[in-house]
């Protein structure tokens, strides 16, 4: 059956039920088109029909009338309504039309139709493809031929069918003529469902003060006429009652009344409406007297139908008197004068403005009077009455009579009849409601049973409509007072659909939803086969719309997700819809609803509900393919990669190269050589440390950097918010990623899925196959392709986190959110969550450098003598088979560097800092060298490296170094290079050989005798003096160095200083040798050491303050430069006594102390402010001889600066040469006149003479010194030049 049933029309008894049956092979579309063609001629005027010989039904009798065919293609189970055919004969399917599109024989077709539809009274065949001109076929009146889809003579055919019908009808009626008509209850017996009205008592709402009056329920619907007659009934003495009660006459009368009623029905079908009106009226009069309420009501119904049909045909008619009596109605005049808003719901005397007619006090009426009253009524012309209201009143009356029958055992109204009547009245009222006046259009609508298509928008009732909204509503819910359960399902569907439509017309959507829900409940519980078509989905869609389910999309919008709606309502409605959809196996809709339920109401469903939902609905849908997508868009949570199995444990980056731009590499090499910062920049203490590192290693090795062929795993977190297990059968990267890497699919397959437990979030880890290198920009994975429940794989975005908006925030942000919403829609960003992505880089396969075990040293440990170099060999090989090494670079780092703290330089004074840094620099640049560094290595190539270790300049705490080999291959785009590092540690022990134990500088005063020329340094000085006349012995100082041989073997040693070359000396093991090196004094005037800054090895350090004043700094600088002067020129080489091949050198820088001021002033000629020249007339005197000393003082600087006072004190000191003690001022050894001091002015050269008288013999040293006047310290300047005075005893002969 078709669940979208027709809405019952008020005048449906007029229509001839006709069934069109396809014969042959029709396509549904063609057949429906053909039926639609026929339907155009459903209205046939009697004028066009050939007359028949039955006087009752001949079309000639009422040429204005018409036949109304109700063509249908849906069969109807006639037998179920068999009991109603006496009472309502129009329910029967009268005409069968077979539409034939093949050439099947006529007789056979007719035979089949008659067998299949035995109750039909007229059977016709239409051959659609044209019938061959056959004499036999022509002779038969019920065989027609036309051509579809362009039929020509269709109207004629339908007219002829009408003729056939009328003939058949007259036969059919004749069979009824002499039959006693029985009520349906009497025919059907107990199987007929009685109408059960579950009506409210009127006093639902009471005030306790109100006394609940025994209301006259029975009388409330009575007109005054009925009251009158009722009172007649009650008075047993009345004659009329007596005559009626005689059973014989009564039965006869009743039978006659019923016969008239059924005749009226047949006349309606035959289109003879005015005759029908007469028949019904007579029937009503008879039946009313007999109180045969069931048939009476039906007859009144017939009269109402006649009214409407006649109005439709625009034929004037008179309202029968009896109707006016039963349903007192004011004429149009009174309506116009009164307020249009009349609640016509109840035909009670109170609410209806009284007409003079009804104002009859019933109690007082005597029967005689009443007859007079009835006689005073006349037929009222139709034009003067409000027809809709009349029909409505008649309907009320009919319902009243129907309800009266309920007490009877057999003469009761069947439920279906009652319902049908309420329904058709309802449709009538709605049709009237939709239009302002009772216009022909309304009639047309009523007659053609078209439902009003929500034509007018329903605002407030303005009273213009025939029936108010409340009125219709109140009428409509009468249906809900009925017990509809026992109706045939078809009728129930009709009832509910009509109600739903009614409510929809009124805009009572929630009511509509309720009714639809009831309908679905009925459908779900019925066991009948129900035809379900696509169009019926609208029912479900309506329900979903009204309950606000379909608009909810919590996946996308947070407002939807957080909105508070009537969840239980929605959930239940959805469940019900699902049940229905499943019953009709509309899988497409089922999948949609099931997913909606599971995704929007997850939290509302219990575990058992969810699992049954899954098993009953979702799983079948998956199998049949109507669910093709997994429904939870947030299934994939975080993702990550892990590398596995490094070759060398502990060295994470051993295998993984660093990627660097080639330009960066070149830069970093330069930077590496001299770690410098830009000097023009202001020092930024926060940047220094980081900037260096960045330069060197431009790209940080992140976790998401992988290597082709690497073993790696992919981990992602999957969520299952549902209360059933999810089977994940496939997880893979999206196709654009697959080029580079893919997940091994052997771990997840259809046969071996991963089961994600209910309500859990699990991490799943799958090995990755890394296939190809990405470009250096890497690739971004933001989605994964996933297959759940063997659904086709689908891409899901990676969700990092859900967005939570607190309710308060939500409200505040509402306005701004609305703005954003547009953006959200545009960019299709899901506002529920934050999407994440995973950026990975895959490097190409890398070469690998291998160290071959062919080194000449054992266990990378090396013992080396200080001051020597050695070579170590190392074999390396490019282990990989197909990757060349395009780039190799060697670096070394020593433990000294490593152990140095980054702020080591803060504590040192400039000269010390220089020393430290110089040493480190030497260590870095010259101690370890790869002599034959290769530029590149082919795959499989090996190379022997020679590494020179030079510990000449290395400090003794140099114990180990690491040789790091940076190598790599260029990327395919040749902009980048991949660098790997191989580090080889070496341990070093430096054995001490030659050390400098002590250093001293002494001035050279005495003339050296020529005979001691065998000493190397004396020879040197003498030759110098000889060669250069200006040169004097005072120009030299002696540098005394104590060499100690700490080694086990004796060694030969030779020292060079400028052009001085010493002899080769042998130092035995553990012996010390003092060596004298003549050094020419440094000319003060030539080298301005005091103004020369101490250099920095590392430039760019700022804010270093030595904390020294100018004088101290000058002193520091002089000491520094003097030392540098010596170091620069001094060199020493040695070789072993036993093995002269083993040679070495001494790095004096390691050993020489800082110079103290005495050393500086000794070596630094002209450092003092004055030149004091002390001359003596004779250096050898005898006791008692006068000695004249001349002192010449000269200012060397020529400039009188402020800090040097002009007045100075010149002192002469006499020192005992042997004891090196200064003689006291007054002594008995050398006498002098006056003092040995003199105040001098220094601004000009000055000479003074002193006379001494030596008393004791001995050797004295006389020297002159200049001191400040005020200072206690006598010594300001001590000239190293002194005179050795030898005092001899006088030789007494």
């Amino acid at each position, binding site marked *: 059956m078709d669940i979208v049933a027709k809405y019952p029309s008020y005048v449906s008894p007029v229509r001839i039920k006709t069934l069109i049956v396809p014969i042959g092979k029709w396509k549904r579309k063609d057949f429906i088109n053909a039926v639609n063609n026929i339907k155009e001629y459903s209205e046939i005027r009697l004028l066009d029909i050939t007359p028949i010989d039955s006087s009752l039904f001949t079309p000639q009798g009422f040429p204005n009338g018409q036949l109304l065919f109700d063509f249908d293609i849906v069969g109807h189970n006639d037998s179920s309504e068999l009991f109603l055919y006496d009472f309502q004969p129009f329910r029967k399917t009268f005409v069968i039309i077979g539409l034939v599109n093949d050439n099947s024989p006529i007789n056979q077709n007719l035979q089949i139709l008659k067998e299949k539809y035995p109750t039909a009274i007229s059977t016709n065949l239409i051959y659609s493809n044209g019938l061959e001109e056959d004499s036999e076929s022509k002779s038969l009146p019920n065989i027609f031929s036309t051509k579809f889809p362009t039929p020509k003579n269709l109207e004629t055919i339908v007219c002829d069918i009408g003729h056939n019908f009328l003939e058949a009808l007259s036969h059919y009626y004749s069979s009824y003529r002499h039959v006693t008509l029985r009520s349906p209850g009497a025919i059907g017996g107990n199987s007929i469902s009685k109408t*059960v009205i*579950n*009506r*409210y*008592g*009127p*006093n*639902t*709402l*009471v*005030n*306790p003060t*109100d006394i609940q*009056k025994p*209301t*006259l329920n029975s009388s*409330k619907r009575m007109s005054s006429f009925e009251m009158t007659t009722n009172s007649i009934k009650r008075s047993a003495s009345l004659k009329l009652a007596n005559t009626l009660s005689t059973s014989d006459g009564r039965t006869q009368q009743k039978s006659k009344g019923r016969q008239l009623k059924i005749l009226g029905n047949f006349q309606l079908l035959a289109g003879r409406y005015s005759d029908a009106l007469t028949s019904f009226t007579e029937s009503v009069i008879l039946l009313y007297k007999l109180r045969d309420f069931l048939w009476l009501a039906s007859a009144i119904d017939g009269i109402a139908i006649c009214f409407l049909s006649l109005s439709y045909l625009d034929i004037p008619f008179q309202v029968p008197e009896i109707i006016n009596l039963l349903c007192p109605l004011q004429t149009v005049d009174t309506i116009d004068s009164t307020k249009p808003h009349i*609640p016509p*719901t*109840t035909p*009670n005397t*109170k*609410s209806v403005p009284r007409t003079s007619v009804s104002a009859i006090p019933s109690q007082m009426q005597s029967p005689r009077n009443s007859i007079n009253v009835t006689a005073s009524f006349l037929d009222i012309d139709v034009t003067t009455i409000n027809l809709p209201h009349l029909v409505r009143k008649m309907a009320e009356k009919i319902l009243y009579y129907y309800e009266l029958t309920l007490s009877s055992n057999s003469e009761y109204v069947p439920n279906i009849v009652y319902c049908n009547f309420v329904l058709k009245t309802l449709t009538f009222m709605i049709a009237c409601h939709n239009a302002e006046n009772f216009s022909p259009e309304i009639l047309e609508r009523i007659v053609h049973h078209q439902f009003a298509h929500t034509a007018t928008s329903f605002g*407030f009732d303005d009273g213009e409509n025939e029936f*108010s*909204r*409340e*009125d219709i*509503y*109140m*009428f409509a*819910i*009468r249906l*809900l*007072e009925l*017990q509809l359960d026992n109706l045939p399902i078809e009728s129930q569907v009709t009832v509910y659909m009509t109600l739903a439509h009614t*409510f929809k017309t009124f*805009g*009572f*959507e*929630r*009511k509509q*939803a*309720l009714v639809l*829900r009831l309908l679905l409940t009925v459908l779900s519980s019925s066991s009948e086969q129900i035809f379900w078509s696509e169009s019926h989905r609208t029912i479900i869609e309506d329900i979903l719309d009204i*309950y*606000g389910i379909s608009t909810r999309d919590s996946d996308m919008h947070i407002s939807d997700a957080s*909105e*508070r*709606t*009537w969840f*239980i*309502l929605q959930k*239940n*409605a959805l469940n019900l819809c699902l049940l229905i959809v499943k019953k009709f196996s509309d899988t497409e809709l089922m999948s949609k609803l099931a997913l909606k339920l599971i995704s929007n109401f997850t939290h509302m469903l219990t575990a058992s509900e969810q699992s049954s939902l899954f098993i009953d609905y979702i799983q079948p849908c998956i199998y049949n393919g109507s669910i093709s997508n997994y429904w939870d868009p947030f299934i994939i949570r975080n993702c990550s990669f892990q590398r596995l199995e490094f070759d060398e444990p502990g060295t994470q980056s051993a295998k993984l190269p660093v990627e660097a731009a080639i330009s960066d590499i070149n830069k970093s090499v330069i930077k590496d050589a001299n770690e410098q910062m830009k000097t023009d920049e202001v020092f930024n203490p926060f940047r220094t440390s980081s900037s260096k590192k960045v330069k060197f290693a431009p790209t940080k090795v992140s976790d998401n950097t992988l290597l082709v062929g690497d073993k790696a795993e992919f981990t992602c977190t999957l969520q299952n918010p549902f209360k059933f297990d999810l089977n994940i059968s496939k997880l893979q990267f999206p196709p654009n990623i697959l080029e580079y890497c893919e997940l091994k699919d052997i771990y997840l397959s259809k046969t071996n899925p991963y089961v994600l437990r209910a309500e859990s979030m699990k991490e799943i880890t799958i090995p990755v196959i890394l296939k190809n290198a990405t470009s250096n920009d890497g690739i971004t994975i933001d989605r994964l392709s996933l297959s759940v429940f063997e659904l086709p794989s689908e891409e899901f975005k990676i969700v990092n986190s859900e967005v939570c908006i607190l*309710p*308060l925030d939500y*409200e505040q942000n509402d306005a701004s959110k609305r703005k954003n919403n547009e953006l959200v829609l545009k960019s299709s960003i899901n506002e529920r969550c934050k999407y994440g992505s995973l950026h990975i880089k895959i490097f190409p396969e890398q070469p690998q450098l291998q160290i071959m075990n062919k080194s000449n040293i054992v266990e990378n440990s090396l013992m080396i003598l200080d001051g020597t170099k050695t070579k170590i060999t190392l074999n390396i090989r490019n282990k990989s088979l197909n990757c060349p090494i395009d780039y190799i670079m060697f670096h070394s780092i020593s433990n000294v560097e490593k152990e140095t703290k980054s702020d080591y330089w803060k504590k040192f004074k400039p000269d010390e800092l220089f020393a430290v840094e110089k040493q480190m620099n030497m260590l870095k640049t010259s101690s370890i060298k790869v002599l034959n560094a290769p530029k590149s290595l082919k795959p499989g190539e090996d190379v022997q490296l020679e590494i020179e270790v030079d510990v000449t300049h290395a400090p003794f705490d140099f114990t180990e170094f690491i040789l790091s080999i940076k190598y790599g291959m260029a990327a395919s785009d040749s902009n980048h290079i991949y660098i790997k590092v191989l580090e080889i540690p070496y341990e070093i022990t430096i054995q001490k050989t030659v050390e400098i134990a002590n250093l001293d500088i002494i001035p050279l005063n005495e003339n050296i005798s020529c005979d001691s020329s065998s000493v190397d340094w004396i020879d040197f000085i003498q030759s110098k003096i000889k060669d250069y006349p200006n040169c004097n012995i005072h120009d030299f100082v002696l540098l005394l160095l104590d060499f100690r041989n700490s080694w086990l073997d004796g060694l030969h040693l030779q020292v060079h200083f400028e052009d001085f070359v010493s002899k080769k000396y042998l130092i035995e093991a553990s012996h010390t040798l003092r060596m004298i090196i003549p050094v020419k004094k440094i000319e003060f005037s030539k080298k301005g050491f005091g103004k020369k800054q101490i250099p920095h090895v590392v430039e760019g350090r700022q804010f270093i303050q030595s904390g020294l004043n100018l004088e101290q700094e000058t002193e520091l600088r002089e000491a520094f430069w003097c030392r540098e002067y010596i170091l620069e020129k001094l060199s020493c080489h040695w070789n072993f006594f036993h093995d002269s091949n083993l040679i070495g050198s001494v790095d004096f820088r390691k050993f020489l102390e800082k110079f103290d001021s005495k050393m500086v002033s000794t070596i630094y000629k002209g450092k003092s402010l004055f030149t004091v020249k002390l001359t003596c007339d004779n250096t050898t005197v005898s006791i008692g001889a006068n000695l004249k000393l001349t002192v010449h003082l000269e200012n060397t600087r020529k400039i009188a600066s402020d800090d040097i006072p002009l007045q100075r004190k010149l002192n002469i000191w006499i020192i005992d040469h042997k004891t090196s003690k200064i003689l006291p001022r007054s002594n008995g050894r050398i006498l002098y006149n006056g003092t040995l001091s003199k105040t001098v002015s220094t601004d000009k050269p000055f000479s003074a003479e002193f006379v001494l008288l030596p008393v004791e013999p001995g050797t004295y040293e006389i020297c002159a010194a200049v001191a400040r006047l005020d200072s206690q310290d006598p010594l300001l300047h001590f000239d190293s030049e002194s005179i050795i005075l030898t005092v001899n005893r006088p030789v007494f002969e």
Partner: protein
Amino acid sequence: MPQYFAIIGHKDNPIYEAEFSIQQGNQKNLGFSQELKEMNPFILHASLDIIEDLQWQVVPSNSQYTNGNNSDNGSNFSISSTGGFLRSKTVNNTDNCYLGKVDHFYGLAITAYISYGGMKFVMIHGTSNSGGSNTSASVVIDDSACRSFYQEIHELYIKTLMNPFYRAGDPISSPVFDSRVRSLARKYLNK
């Protein structure tokens, strides 16, 4: 007789739901049948249509909804005397908020009350022996008690609204509110 009471917000969202049933001596709990329990929200939801219709009627014709098939019974409704919810601005008391019986569905009567904020207080009155089956016994509702019940619930609701932590339109989850509503129900409805 049991009742199903709900406060409905602007978006047809339930703010509060409760079912009242009576405990009569040693008798079993006389609540709604299981079938009706499921149906109640639907019935209540459907009656919102009628309530909204009444809410905006200038000339209230309440009686049409409530007693379409009777008028002769003498029970008069307050609403018809004071003139509809829309006229309530001229009246000082909350009389007009009470709509009385607005709808019925089979054996169930539905009464309603609208707050000035548009919250709908709706109640389904079941029959005392309603087993969901057809019973001819009609529901009798004490009009004034019902009105008082609604008015006190309205007061309670306003108190809830004044809670700074309560956001209008959210479900009321306060157990105090619930217990008070139930005690009111005992006081007025199921005496």
